[in-house]
């Protein structure tokens, strides 16, 4: 209370609120609860995501032109995908120190930057080797399987993050869900980076990079309702 004249008008009565009978009954049988640990949540989602990608790569095999590509590009772009995934999930799952409210804005900025950045990066930078495939604009639509595989990989971080944050968010749930989708999309992009040997700009940019934006969109529509507290 600030001592503002409006507070004076509201009066002393407004300064006391008895605990309701319903709440008193709940307090009578109060039991300890396990507190939320954002860093444990983040570690869980990252560990699950890493295991999922490694398992998927083991099952579906690495791209056969991997040895023919510049090592710096392979490592640099992989690091960028990992960074995008980690940052988006970090901001979505771990609030600022001393706060309980999710950093939805930072998470959304990271996800949007990743969604745009990876499309541009893929369009501009797409080295290839003798074993690489080229679809180009003519057969662009034939590369849609990558989109589906990327979204399949993106599913795990989105589902895991949604389960861990379920019914806990009061503001900007669409953006939080979109950021989880962005993190998942980056994981999908990371997988495609090591899996798909189609090395033309439109495919790498619009399909591999596009996984991030599409995953954001789908997560914001489908997952946000599960994040919203009731």
């Amino acid at each position: 209370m600030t001592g503002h004249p409006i507070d004076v008008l509201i009066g002393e009565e407004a300064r006391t609120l008895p605990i309701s009978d319903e709440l008193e009954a709940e307090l009578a049988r109060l039991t300890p609860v396990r507190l939320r640990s954002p860093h444990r949540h983040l570690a869980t989602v990252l560990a699950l995501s890493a295991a999922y990608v490694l398992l998927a790569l083991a099952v579906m095999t690495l791209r056969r032109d991997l040895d023919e590509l510049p090592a710096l590009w392979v490592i640099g772009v992989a690091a960028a995908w990992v960074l995008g995934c980690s940052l988006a999930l970090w901001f979505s799952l771990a609030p600022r120190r001393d706060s309980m409210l999710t950093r939805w804005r930072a998470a959304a900025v990271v996800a949007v930057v990743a969604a745009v950045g990876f499309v541009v990066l893929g369009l501009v930078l797409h080295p290839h080797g003798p074993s690489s495939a080229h679809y180009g604009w003519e057969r662009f639509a034939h590369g849609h399987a990558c989109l589906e595989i990327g979204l399949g990989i993106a599913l795990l971080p989105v589902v895991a993050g949604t389960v861990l944050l379920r019914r806990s968010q009061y503001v900007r749930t669409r953006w939080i869900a979109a950021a989880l989708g962005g993190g998942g999309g980056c994981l999908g992009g990371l997988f495609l980076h090591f899996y798909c040997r189609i090395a033309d700009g439109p495919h790498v940019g619009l399909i591999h990079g596009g996984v991030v934006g599409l995953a954001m969109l789908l997560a914001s529509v489908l997952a946000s309702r599960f994040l919203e507290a009731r």
Partner: protein
Amino acid sequence: MTSYCAGDASAFRALHTLVAPRVLAYLVKMTRDRVLAADLAQQTFMKIHRARHHYIAGADPLPWIMSIAHHTFIDEVRKRGSSVVVLSSTPSLPEPATEHAPVDRARVDAALAALAELPSRQRQAVVLITLEGHSAAEAAQIAGTTAGTMRVRAHRGCEALRTALGAT
């Protein structure tokens, strides 16, 4: 809050004593209806109780609690199908406490009425920043927006209040 989550009911009572006046004052200013505000405050504390497992050890629970209070208010607005809420034409506010300096009741009444006419977001910003004394950053966390946006909303709200009160 940590002791309360560990199962200490007296810690909840201490928290309630500390926070309930702020929650209630906020809701009274948002709804201009003390009975409704008290009901929403009770709902808020029930929600806090049921969501206590979301608490993060060491975190300041106040912005979270105020977010829940605002969310509860918004739910009520939606339920009533109005963006300007409720806001009874005859506010059920009690008489001012006698130990305070005398206030111009008619003027404060007019201020409350003008506050009620503000769009919900501006009203929230004015109540949180100007009347409740939260920082813009804290208010932004509660409202789920940026500090700059909250400052602008509070400024516009105050301007609208000045205009409305100047006209009365």
